[in-house]
């Protein structure tokens, strides 16, 4: 790819920083703030661009992993059984062909299962479900925090 994505983003950052920003009048505070944010966004995108496919693939794998653990433990009544079936179908379809869409489908199904277990899950399921979710989400949220740490909100 010529020019490559990094070269294109770099040229946009330079134009914003060295051509546009200095020419904004002092009273254009909103425009100045937004140019600074654009530059920050683009610099982080430049740094992360090559890693995005692997990160999103891992997000999908982690979603499938929590769903599989829940499926292996959770039982219950009619609502829980239906939610489990829908979740298992979403997991079965998660072949990586549409990473974002498949992850969203699996997580929606997990969300529905959480609600279903609250309604008619077995007592064992109600006890086990929070622990399963927390054990998966602890490392997952840490990965997310590290990914977004360059934005400067986090004190990791």
């Amino acid at each position, binding site marked *: 790819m010529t020019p490559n994505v990094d070269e294109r983003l770099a040229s946009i950052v330079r134009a914003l920083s060295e051509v546009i920003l200095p020419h904004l009048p002092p009273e254009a505070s909103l425009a100045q703030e937004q140019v600074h944010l654009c530059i920050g966004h683009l610099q982080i995108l430049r740094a992360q661009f090559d890693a995005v496919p692997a990160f999103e693939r891992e997000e999908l794998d982690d979603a499938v992993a929590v769903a599989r653990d829940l499926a292996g433990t959770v039982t219950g009544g009619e609502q829980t059984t239906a939610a489990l079936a829908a979740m298992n179908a979403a997991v079965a379809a998660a072949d990586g062909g549409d990473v974002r869409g498949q992850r969203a489908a699996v997580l929606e199904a997990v969300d529905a299962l959480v609600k279903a277990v609250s309604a008619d899950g077995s007592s064992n399921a109600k006890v086990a479900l929070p622990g399963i*979710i927390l054990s998966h989400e602890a490392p997952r949220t840490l990965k997310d925090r590290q990914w977004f740490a360059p934005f400067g909100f986090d004190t990791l």
Partner: protein
Amino acid sequence: MTTATLNDMEAVNRRILDRRAANRSLPPYRAALIPEVTDLLASYFDKVCPGAVVDGVRRVGGGASKEQFFFTLTDAEGARQQYLLRMDPRSAITETDREREFILLQAMAGVVPVPEAAWVDPAGSHFPQPAAIMKVVSGVTKPSGSGVKVSGLGTWLGEDLRAKLRDQFLDHLVTIHAYDFRANPLPGFEVPDADDLQAARWVINYWHELWRIDHGETRPIVALAQQWLADNLPPCPPENLVLTHGDYRTGNYLFDEASGQITALLDWELARIGDFHEDLGWVLMQIFGTNEDGTFRASDLFEREEFITEYERRSGRTVNRTTLHFYDVLSSYKCYVICAANGLAAARSQHNHQDVLLTFLGCATAIFAGDLVRLLSQGAPA
């Protein structure tokens, strides 16, 4: 909970939700231009203050939700006064009601330092969106030279200002909570006293519904938190119902940098009658505080236990740790909804004047997911 209890919330919040849902199909919004705002203000004051002249309109930087402009108004007698126009974009990171904020500012005048509310256009009948105008108060939200922090998060005050501000910060909160809303009712502010769970139920219903309307992208910890909140509503006996500020933290008050005097408490738009623990949980959020050498300070003013015990001592109230834990979880959940659903929905629909800020703030959601994992893992203190 039944459908009936899921719909249980203040009427104003139902109106806000309906408005947000209805606005979804409207065309994109763009930032107002200074000449446009000048014309709007001039024609407004032709009606409400004939003979007055508007000049010096300029945009106020910072903030993540409203379009704000300073301007000077010269009345027919020649008296000049600086004002602030706060105008809603079509959709914002927090959806609130200008009239409610206006009523509250009027009620708080003389109770705690607040900007003087002057005019309000609650339905956007003159301005393109709901708007309010208040007198300008001098002061800063952060020390000069403290660097750029998006939306005042994690402001570092330093030792000197900390010493000057902390007592005022806590005493003002205690004073707000002591406001006698039964003797001096606030128009439009309903009291959640149908049963002991209503205070908590109203707030989670509102935030769950916001999440639903804005199509927040779910994840397992959010699903778990939503269910946990619904299953663990803490009772709020009538004596624990107070006027809450709703967004009480460093960054939401003005102070005089030289004296350290708080000159105005700002951003009252999330205020309601609720459980006093709700404000405490918000003040104690990690994102609004600082970490220095392993020491966390809420709003860079108090360590956690110090804040709780000082609040108890000054207010005469007893902090229930189980209830506070619920509101700790709720605060992280609210922040998640604000950043991951409300802000991103406003940006996606191009209904805001600073989409790029909203997507930038959206990158903080992982912190709140992490907070939810930590809080739900540790459970309520014994």
